């Protein structure tokens, strides 16, 4: 298959404008003849559903949450980037574009990223008009901060709850369209499969999570806005119900899955405290501005942090990266924490943690200054761990946070299935091998508010208005296969709960396809995941029935997909014989132990095609063309 990214010709800065002019339009009076299904109502889905309904399309929106306002986007803390240059500090659309391409370690498309930077400014305008209470200066202007290594202040924020406020903005617009009847909202409804008619996406099969009822819905196009797959790892900073089933099932229906091994590990999370742990909590990256990261010089040191003398401490980031110190990028900070713990120098009960120490900062700036900056974070830490970071060093450890990979989409956000689109974290498009802080919110809203409303018209304009009936055999077959899967799961009479198997999978992926990877480990991991797949289908312990609210069943159905996606992540990591961004292959590093890219052989998007159960996936390459930026090796020495 030849992958056509459909990036418009012409100079970078003119591509999107030209494209908007050249796409076909659907006449305003005809828009009401088209039905669009939007799966997911996080930032990407809610913004898309609202915007499309405002244009006049009929939208059916689905979420497994009890309300659209509970999507995982609500938990984003830090902020959202936009090239407004309100601070007059040298920011521009080009600089945001450049930072994103470089931050992504040159594994993203120039055309997409430039468009993202371009529309970023409209997002802020839109959100303010909706009443999003962004932080302000005393004069009443919007306030900005710098974030994630950027040298300019371009991050807009609403205290530590930016995702919440942005989602509530999109949710309010969505609610307005629900009230007009242009959006029909289905809550507590999980999309179980995508339905294709004559090769085009024409609907979905859903399960009502309260009654278990399985139903079909037809439309002219389907948008997947279903978030990322970080929960393959079991423990992550994602909400517990985030899952990969919608995208994975679309993949099995023919949509290619791109760069699954590109996952982001965030360095400052609260460490795991025991086997019972259900999720990991992110602590803002800003803590590294004042906290010093260290471990004891010798392993097995059981003294309390404050009892270990200065000379017996190893400030390993400051030692290895004197120029950047504790502020090295996310992947570098994470990897180094792992190394010192692998050496047996980790701290805390589990020995899988490093110290983040504010004692020096408190001595230097005083308690009040530190408390004004980080008070709420310290409080959150104390709530969870029961320890007071003003008195004793915090313990932190890296955790899975974001997935750059996702369904392959072209410039129009269409997957390789005609009429099936992917938006937000569900697609692979804009972050390459590593995402910059505050750029996921920007991308989700760019896709939903400003890209899809234009690009979907190009597809629909040439599509007949006729509706397809859900009585067609394609829908009946898809329903039967969902019924079949539910029954198959419920009749396995084994010993292990879906949760237990998920936990085991997470451990394999974390150990072998996490912060650093090598060919031998990956091959071994693939075998283990395969045997776990076997075990799942033979030794699963299930309770309850399919005709009621059944969380065990929901979980099992998601774990079935994680087991397959986990294998593809390993296959992808094994294929990519280079290190880039979040993908660190131990065999490919510089003499100083830094990631070593191979632009000659791997400057491509790896898009995988599903070939059937137990069969190897097929690799398709989309070569990345860089016409505007020069590829350089990252170095933080």
């Amino acid at each position, binding site marked *: 298959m030849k992958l056509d990214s459909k990036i418009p010709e012409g100079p970078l800065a003119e591509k999107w404008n030209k494209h908007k002019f050249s796409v076909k339009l659907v006449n305003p009076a005809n828009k009401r003849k088209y039905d669009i299904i939007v799966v997911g109502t996080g930032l990407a889905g809610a*913004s898309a559903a609202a*915007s499309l309904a405002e244009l006049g399309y009929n939208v059916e929106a689905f979420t497994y949450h*009890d*309300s659209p*306002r*509970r999507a*995982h986007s*609500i*938990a984003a803390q830090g902020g959202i980037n936009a090239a*407004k240059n*309100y601070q007059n500090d040298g920011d521009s659309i080009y600089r945001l574009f450049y930072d994103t391409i470089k931050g992504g370690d040159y594994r993203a498309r120039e055309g997409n990223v430039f468009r993202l930077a371009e529309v970023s400014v*409209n997002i*802020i*305008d*839109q*959100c*303010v*008009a*909706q*009443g999003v*209470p*962004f*932080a*302000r*200066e005393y004069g*009443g*202007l919007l306030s900005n901060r710098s974030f994630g290594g950027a040298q300019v202040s371009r991050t807009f924020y609403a*205290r530590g*709850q930016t995702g*919440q406020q942005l989602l509530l903005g999109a*949710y*309010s*617009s969505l*609610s*307005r369209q*629900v009230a007009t009847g242009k959006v029909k*909202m289905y*809550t507590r409804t999980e999309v179980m499969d995508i339905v294709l008619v004559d090769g085009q996406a024409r609907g979905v099969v859903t399960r009502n999570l*309260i009654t278990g009822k399985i139903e079909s819905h037809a439309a002219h196009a389907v948008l997947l806005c279903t978030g990322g797959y970080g929960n393959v790892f079991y423990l992550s900073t994602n909400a*517990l119900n985030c899952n990969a089933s919608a995208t994975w099932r679309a993949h099995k229906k023919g949509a290619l899955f791109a760069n699954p091994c590109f996952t982001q590990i965030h360095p400052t999370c609260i460490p795991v*405290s*025991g086997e*019972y742990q*259900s*999720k990991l*909590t992110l602590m803002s990256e800003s803590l590294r501005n004042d906290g010093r990261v260290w471990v004891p010089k010798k392993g097995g040191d059981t003294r309390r942090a404050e009892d270990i003398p200065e000379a017996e401490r190893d400030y390993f980031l400051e030692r290895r990266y004197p120029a950047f110190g504790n502020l090295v990028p996310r992947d570098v900070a994470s990897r180094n924490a792992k190394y010192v713990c692998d050496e047996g120098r980790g701290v805390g009960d589990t020995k899988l943690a490093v110290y983040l120490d504010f004692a020096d900062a408190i001595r230097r700036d005083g308690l009040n200054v530190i408390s004004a900056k980080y008070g709420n974070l310290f409080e959150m830490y104390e*709530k*969870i761990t*029961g320890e007071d970071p003003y008195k004793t060093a915090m313990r932190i450890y890296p955790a899975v946070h974001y997935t750059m990979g996702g369904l392959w989409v072209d410039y129009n956000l269409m997957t390789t299935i005609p009429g099936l689109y992917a938006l937000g974290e569900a697609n692979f498009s804009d972050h390459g091998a590593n995402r910059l802080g505050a750029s996921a919110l920007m991308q989700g809203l760019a896709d939903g*508010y*400003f890209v899809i*409303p234009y690009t979907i018209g190009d597809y629909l304009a040439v599509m007949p208005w006729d509706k397809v009936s859900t009585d067609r055999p394609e829908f009946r077959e898809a329903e039967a296969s969902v019924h079949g899967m539910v029954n198959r799961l419920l009749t396995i009479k084994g010993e292990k*709960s879906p*949760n237990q198997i998920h936990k085991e999978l997470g451990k394999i992926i974390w150990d072998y396809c996490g912060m650093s990877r090598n060919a031998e480990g990956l091959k071994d991991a693939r075998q283990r995941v395969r045997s776990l797949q076997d075990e799942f289908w033979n030794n699963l*312990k299930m*309770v*309850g029935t399919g005709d*009621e*609210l059944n969380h*065990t069943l929901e979980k099992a159905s998601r774990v079935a997909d994680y087991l397959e996606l986990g294998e593809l992540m390993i296959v992808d990591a094994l294929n990519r014989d280079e290190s880039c961004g979040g993908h660190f292959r131990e065999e490919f590093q510089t003499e100083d132990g830094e990631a070593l890219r191979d632009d000659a052989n791997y400057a491509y998007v790896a898009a995988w095609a599903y070939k059937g159960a137990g069969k190897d996936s097929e690799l398709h390459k989309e070569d990345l063309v860089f016409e505007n930026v020069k590829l350089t090796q990252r170095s933080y020495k």
Partner: protein
Amino acid sequence: MKLKLRIWRQKDANSKGKLVDYDVDVNSHMSFLEMLDELNEQLVEKGEEPVAFDHDCREGICGTCNLYINGRPHGPVRTTTCQLHMRHFNEGETIVIEPFRAKSFPIVKDLIIDRSSFDRIVQAGGYISVNTGSARDANETLIPKPIADEAFNSAACIACGACVAACKNASAMLFVGAQISKFALLPQGKAERKTRAEKMVAQMDAEGFGACSNIGACSAECPKEISMANIARMNREYFGAKLTSTNL
């Protein structure tokens, strides 16, 4: 630590429910929901139905979790259920776990309730009518910091429903007051303030939430510290709108 749990079990909306006792032995570092996870794993192991409860982010922000613990919404500490930890309980203690109870929050199963009434109140008017693409430059509207901060305080509501569960009248005034306030405070929200207040209050009444008798239990139990000032502001908006109403 060994604990006795008394948990509300109810098969579905139409069945009768009852409290059922369980003994657990848990680690005091666990969160409250991890304690329930553990109980559920044991129940599944025994082939019994796990206790159904709602949760998602486990960070205190999505508002999904909602348990009534020992007679208080979200339990003994002023936080969300997911942010409550077992170290706030004592060895040997009996913990009673029920769903939030209110006529407008019907029980779905066990500890899960239906809060879609909140969504319908927002659909009635909890928005600023601005279509995508029609906004002007964000910095053209100056909003003094104290006003932006105040609007944020109201907007911090997570729609958990603890205020309703805490109120003996099952009133939703704190929730609705917060939704109305966050727009009423901002210049962008002024144009529609009358219609908004009237429509949202009308929907709140239609959903069957009770009246407010100014006791303040709602605000005292609110994990996001939404203040009673929101209810006062809502009343001002509403009566102001009624006096000069051209709507409804």
